């Protein structure tokens, strides 16, 4: 069995879509946020695999940036969720619907 770049991509795609399903389906904001991390990680896997496939390091640099950005996003996002929870006493997506129509 020859593991090619397609296999890596397939895994990353699966992870991407699992994460997407989490974002779309789960009601808990924290889990939604974790699912978003899954999606970013899926991209990371793809980038590293393709970086190797393409024989250059630019993809890995990109992954480095993504990890950093993800960290920053997590920090801000979680702070926001905390602030929300403090006011709303909830972190449920479906209860955030005062702005609509």
């Amino acid at each position, binding site marked *: *069995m*020859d*593991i*090619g*770049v*397609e296999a*890596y*991509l*397939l*895994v990353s*795609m*699966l*992870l*991407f*879509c*699992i994460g*997407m*399903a989490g*974002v*779309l*389906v*789960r*009601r*808990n904001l*924290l*889990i939604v*946020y*974790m*699912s978003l991390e*899954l999606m970013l*990680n899926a991209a*990371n*896997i793809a980038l*590293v*695999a393709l*970086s*190797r*496939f393409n*024989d*250059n*390091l630019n993809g*890995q*640099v990109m992954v*480095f*940036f993504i*990890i*950093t950005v*993800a*960290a*920053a996003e*997590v*920090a*801000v996002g*979680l702070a*926001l969720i*905390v*602030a929300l929870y403090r006011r709303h006493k*909830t*972190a*449920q997506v479906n209860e955030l619907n005062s702005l609509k129509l």
Partner: protein
Amino acid sequence: MHDLLFILFSLLIVVFGVLVVAGKNPVNSAMFLVPLMICVGGLFVLLGAYFLAAIQILVYAGAVIVVFLFIIMLLDMDVEKGRRINSFAAVAGIGSSGATLGLLVLALSRSDLGAAGGGESALQGETIPLGKLLFTDYVLPFEILSVLLLVAMVGVILLSKKKLQ
């Protein structure tokens, strides 16, 4: 060996991914996230990206998930109230992500990436060239990231400090 490890990591990633998404409460999800991140790191190792593997594990497993757990504990929320999902969201969400997956796989199947990967690559132990690249060609985005991190810091303070002016 490489193949075996790949299959192992991949299976684990998918399984843990599903578990994260399907986790009963945030704590469970966060806990499943840890091995997932490690497995992703494992894949990085398999691909020869040792530096990134280290960062992956350090940042995600070490920092991000810890913060998640922190927050979960802080907020003291464990079980989702009511139904975890509603049926419409489930259908729409799973449907759309399934459709996306379908598209991606279709695209993948149509592409001819060849079988280049897996073999010996010139990129072995690439930490030093990666560092060079980061501080030469990519120094500008790197610096911008520093601003971004600063923004994140400021933002977190702004959003969570107790005292309001």
